[in-house]
């Protein structure tokens, strides 16, 4: 890691009042010689719709995996509603619903079986699981394909069934890594309204994305991450500071090529 490694107990973002839904301090992870996440600290206020944006390879997925108990951090802590994810993992995981990016599903189950499985694994009651599975599948337009094997689903349907598996136990915090990738616009709108209602009822949603426009419209808070570091965080209006989120993002992250070469690409 770098020399000025952040102290895990320092509190760069001061939030008075209620316990944040997710609070991470000095999270860091190294894969071989590559530092994927280099000391990220941030607070996600309870009841917020929080977007994490960053270019490809910025460390979004690694950070979220460490915050949700899927990947053990080299340094740092993650606390969900006051419960330390790595000290009391079973308790913390009860509070979270996770949609990881780039992992497989048990895809030889039917969609209905997969969501039921996720519910039963969490020790939920059979009848509750059954009624919630029905409602979730209808809400996500998967009712017609409930009995199809997940392996035969399209990419967007697979995303949606994974989302259903993350929602089944009514978590207080939803962590969604790239939830809208390859999802069609109609389903995306449905998912957004589900998430909006969830936030309105007091839940907290964290989504990662590199579609700035989407984050600006959907989220109330945002964090900008690049090269394993946190560049800015706050409410969307604070971060974008009058410009659009995309302009501000490009300004923060840099690396924009002012396309001067490529003259030959002009067709006329």
């Amino acid at each position, binding site marked *: 890691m770098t020399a000025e490694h952040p102290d895990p107990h320092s509190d760069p973002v001061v939030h008075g009042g209620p316990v944040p839904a997710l609070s991470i301090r000095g999270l860091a992870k190294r894969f071989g010689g590559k530092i994927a996440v280099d000391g990220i600290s941030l607070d996600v206020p309870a009841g917020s719709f929080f977007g994490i944006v960053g270019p490809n390879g910025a460390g979004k997925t690694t950070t979220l995996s460490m915050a949700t108990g899927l990947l053990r951090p080299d340094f740092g802590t993650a606390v969900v509603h006051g419960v330390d994810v790595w000290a009391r993992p079973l308790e913390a*995981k009860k509070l979270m619903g996770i949609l990881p990016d780039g992992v*497989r599903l048990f895809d030889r189950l039917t969609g209905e079986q997969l969501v039921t499985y996720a519910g039963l694994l969490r020790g939920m009651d059979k009848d509750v699981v059954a009624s919630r599975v029905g409602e979730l599948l209808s809400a996500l337009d998967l009712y017609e394909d409930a009995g199809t094997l997940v392996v035969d689903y399209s990419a967007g349907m697979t995303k949606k069934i994974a989302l259903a598996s993350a929602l089944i136990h009514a978590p207080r915090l939803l962590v969604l890594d790239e939830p809208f990738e390859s999802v069609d616009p109609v389903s995306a709108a449905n998912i957004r309204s589900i998430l909006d209602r969830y936030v309105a009822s007091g839940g907290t949603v964290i989504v990662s994305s590199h579609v700035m426009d989407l984050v600006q419209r959907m989220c109330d808070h945002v964090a900008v991450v690049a090269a394993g570091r946190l560049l800015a965080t706050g409410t969307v209006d604070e971060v974008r500071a009058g410009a659009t989120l995309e302009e501000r993002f490009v300004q923060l992250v840099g690396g924009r090529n002012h396309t001067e070469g490529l003259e030959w690409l002009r067709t006329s």
Partner: protein
Amino acid sequence: MVAHLLRLKLTLLRNGLRRSPWQLVGLAFGGLYALGLVGIVVAALVLLRTEDPELAQTVVVLGGSAALLGWGLIPVVASAADLTLDPARFTTSAIPMRQLLTGLALGGLIGIPGLATALAALATVWTWARGPLPGVAALVGAAVGVLTCIVLSKVVTTATASLASSRRFKDVSAIAFMVPLVLMGPIVAGVGRGITASTGFLPELAATLSWTPLGAAWSLGGDVAGGRPGAAALKLVIAAATLAVLSWCWKLLLERALVNPPYAGSGSRKGGKLGLFDLLPATPAGAVTARALTYWLRDPRYSGSLVVVPLLPILLVFQGSQSGDYGVLAVAAPLAAFLLAWSISADVSYDNTAFALHVATGVRGVDDRLGRALACLAFALPVVLIFSVGQYFFTGSWSELPGQLGLSLGILFTGLGLSSVVSARYTVAVPLPGDSPFKKPPGNVGQTLVVQFAGMGVLSLLVLPEVGLLIAQLVTGNAMFGWVNLAVGLMLGLALFGAGIRLGGKWLDARGPELLAQLTVNR
């Protein structure tokens, strides 16, 4: 362009090896095995040089025809066909068709099967190098023959591509392929007996085949050596025409395939049927059992071994009927117990990153372990009981049953306990979900070998008491040892089963994320 395609294939191979030195070790083992086989074939062909020309001709033509047939048939059943140079990936590159075909055909030579066939074919040149002319004829024949092999396999894979990309076909063909593979022994024995009974018929068969597309190329050297240049010329025409027609077919099929990518859709089905999830208790362990059992039935990587198990006694009965001594059947039950119990030692590796669901939901390690072990036990226990009891209908020595049962149950329970520990800590290289069970798995071949051998070593230590008691019974003939063995096998086995589940569960609770990280590497 052709050189580019070949270089691409070599680069892909080299980069695949670069991921881990153990990959190289794996390839080396595969290569050594193939080299051994090819060595035997080449040696035989070299020895044939001094034999009677008619015998040599028969062997070369029959062998060559069989090789050509194999290149045509194997890609259909083994969906493991090498797709590194899948033509579909070149759709957007606008490579001229002629160069694409040449490149792909020569690329087919790179790899163990291609090289093995080429080496064996070249050895036939030595067989016929009894003079300059027959040698040249054999060389031409070998070149045409090997090319025909490769083009035929390409025609078959391209023609069946849309069929083979359907998941159902892949699943079924992978399992169907298991059956002849397991029954190889009896099949070879049967064919061997058939051949020895009709040796007089083989030269005739070879002579006939040599006039067909299958054998024409391979008979050129022999015909020239036997002083039949006219026949050889005609057969060269047949062989060349075969190659030309196949290449033309391939070109047509490829042109069509490049603009009509295979469609592998399937109808949608409404829900309402939860299958095993409805039948089993709605607890975390019950859910894991239901999921694992569903996989045993639906995933060819699992169900492949389910198909093998009933074939095991068939093999042994066949062997018994050959020798008249059915004593060999005694291994069926312990062997089945071992195979089934050990099969779940790679359970988490088979899950691949889908295991993330278990980590994310925070299911307790004990529930995870118990569910998987119970799923295996659900059919392994009946199988072991049936095999144990069934053999005595052949041998009639019922006094050995208790001891036998003790050993088999001991192996089953101990093995399940040990597997539960092993799969909680170590991942092994297995075919990815959705891949054919025969596909060479990516990942750490070396660790796989170490885990497998060390695990089996530990297992044989753990069942020593049962083995000792069985030997004592066989030596002394005292039936009491058998009953003691039954008690020991059950009690010791169940104790180790419980201990394995608990220890594996503890490890899983402590190291679930690390295990997931190991799986991510193999993704």
